[in-house]
């Protein structure tokens, strides 16, 4: 195991306790470690993984533990080695690959969507491609237009790949186990702001959770209700879920009961779960840090309307990036993010519209 000391925000681990409070990064790392220990087909490949442990620490200490044959540093040649991962998966391996920032999919989109995602279909099921692509998403730290995007809809739009985005440590570990054991290509996205990665500053408290030492799975295709409510459903993806939780606090002070739903699995999408929540509240706000148009927010709203157009007591609202590139300057950037104030305003709009 890694000899790295627990980070200051992590609870000290004692031999007696079977669970500890972890960050998303540390939790998903545990799942990777466990799977590599128990399945020799699993290996990790990416930039700066072997020695450095990857940008998010997903491979922290795993290079030392499993050796450079199973935790493999790759050159800055993403279309090359993501294509390789697909080929290795076709030959029976189960690669876990890390693309530091999801913004970089531009250079390897072909390997992702035309090969890894389509091979099972095009081969009529002859070749499976069981691999996991880990990547970081999100803005909020002045990294500007090319290092701040979410792009989960850009991936979720394509048939043949699953897309998940856990927002807390318990889900991150369980969903990583599920991802590695899945026979399909899974894209595993974590918002940098919620991940607990060292360069993002203070931790988002609601992303921490008690994580069992043992392996366990969290299924895809099921929403998580973070907070129950009766007046309005706020469905979020990624960091926006944590903003939505703050918004629910503010709304509660105004006497409004908000239900906060973490979509957490974009493909497969738990349409039934979302509809069930909206059926209860009659109002919906979708908070999504991806671009406004043609995205998850529209998909979620359409899914509800397709089922029952009379379900809404007020028009649903979207709180997203308003179809502009993400600016560098702090006031510019903050003005377009789906932060608590915008989510609260949107929720109030659904109430006032009654």
């Amino acid at each position, binding site marked *: 195991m890694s000899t790295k000391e627990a980070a200051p925000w992590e609870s000290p681990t004692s031999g007696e306790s079977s669970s500890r409070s972890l960050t998303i990064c540390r939790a998903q790392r545990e799942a990777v470690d466990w799977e590599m220990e128990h399945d020799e087909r699993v*290996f990790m490949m990416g930039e700066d993984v072997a020695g450095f442990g990857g940008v998010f620490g997903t491979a922290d200490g795993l290079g030392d533990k499993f050796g450079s*044959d*199973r935790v493999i540093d*790759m*050159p800055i*040649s*993403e*279309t*090359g*080695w*993501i*294509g*390789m*991962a*697909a*080929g*290795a*998966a*076709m*030959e*029976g*391996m189960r*690669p876990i690959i890390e693309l530091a920032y999801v913004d970089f999919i531009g250079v390897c989109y*072909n*390997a992702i969507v*035309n*090969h890894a995602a389509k*091979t*099972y*279909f*095009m*081969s*009529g*099921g*002859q*070749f*499976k491609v*069981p691999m996991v692509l880990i990547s970081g998403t999100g803005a909020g730290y002045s990294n500007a237009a090319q290092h701040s995007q979410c792009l989960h809809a850009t991936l979720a739009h394509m*048939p*043949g790949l*699953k897309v998940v985005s856990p927002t807390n440590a318990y889900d991150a570990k369980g969903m990583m186990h599920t991802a590695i054991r899945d*026979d*399909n290509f899974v894209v595993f996205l974590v918002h940098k702001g919620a991940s607990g990665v060292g360069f993002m500053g203070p931790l988002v408290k609601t992303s921490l959770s008690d994580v069992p030492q043992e392996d366990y799975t969290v299924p895809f295709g099921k929403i998580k209700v973070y907070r129950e409510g009766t007046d309005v459903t706020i469905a979020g993806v990624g960091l926006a879920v944590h903003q939505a939780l703050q918004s629910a606090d503010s709304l509660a002070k105004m006497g409004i009961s908000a239900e906060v739903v973490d979509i957490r699995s974009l493909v497969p999408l738990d349409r039934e779960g979302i509809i069930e929540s909206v059926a209860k509240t009659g109002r919906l706000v979708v908070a999504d840090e991806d671009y406004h148009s043609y995205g998850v927010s529209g998909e979620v709203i359409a899914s509800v309307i397709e089922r029952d157009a009379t379900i809404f007591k007020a028009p649903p609202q979207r709180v997203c990036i308003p179809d502009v590139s993400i600016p560098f300057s702090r006031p510019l950037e903050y003005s377009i993010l789906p932060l608590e104030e915008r989510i609260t305003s949107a929720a109030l709009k659904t109430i006032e519209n009654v």
Partner: protein
Amino acid sequence: MSLPTSIRRSMFETMVRSRFWDDRLTTQYWIDKTPVFAFGAGPLPGELHTSHGQEPVGAGVCAALSDEDMITTGHRPHHIAVARGVDLREMSAELFGKKAGLSGGRGGHMHLYDKRVNFSSSGIIAEGLGPAAGMAFARKMQKKSGVALSFLGDGAVNQGAFHEVMNIVGLHKLPFICVIEDNKWAVTTHKSMSTACERNSDRAENYGMTGEFVEGNDPELIYLATQRALERARSGEGGTILEIETVRLSGHFMGDPAGYITGEKSDYQVDPVPVYRARLIDDGILTEQEASDIERVIGAEVDEAITFALDADYPDANDALNCTFA
């Protein structure tokens, strides 16, 4: 060095099989595509890139391979698929979009997969290289034997994927052969207008690989060069960039009259199939009668595969919704 008779004869048979199959497909392709040409019309729809002229590459390379070796190839896959032994009936059915096809009609002519013979093709230029290198990588990790080969055209070398993957192959000394089919044409653009060096095999040194250029579209020289590359790969000496001079006797795809192949650029457009036939007869490997017998038997085999495909059922329309996830 003279090759065993059985191999020479077998390579001729492979070339004939590939040629006859492409000829039959050409006939089928034009059904319902005149007087108005439309890719989507007729019993054999879509783009069709036949391999006329490139048969020696498939025949020569694949004759040297073992069962455990793996192949990825590109949008012009017929000669390689036939040479590798992809089931001709199922492959024909796939091209005609039938349920009995390799992928149940989901793939079509550019996307041929046959796991039984470790074969796959991709319609995206040069992007079969990564998966092939990954297959080689997997075998290395599994401590299993097997060399991966990826076939691409000379035009594909100008894709970034080529340079990314060759660098990784050299870095990890993967058991890998990059087979460049140098037919001099990237759709309608001649190699002299697209490629800064004369021989792409010269690039190998910069990637820590061995480079070989095979002249003359000669299946025997191709076979021997492949053998050398396989030996290097199997003995841990790493990868080879094997550039093979060949010819594209047709247009880029059916419907392209290739009017741009003129003057000195057409001088080398020699059909390799009759050339090899005459050579084997000259060398006393085959008699004229034996060559004709081979052609008759293979012709019947190919006709049977096409008839099988034509007679086969289309898939149930709902099949489109299956097979996206395992």
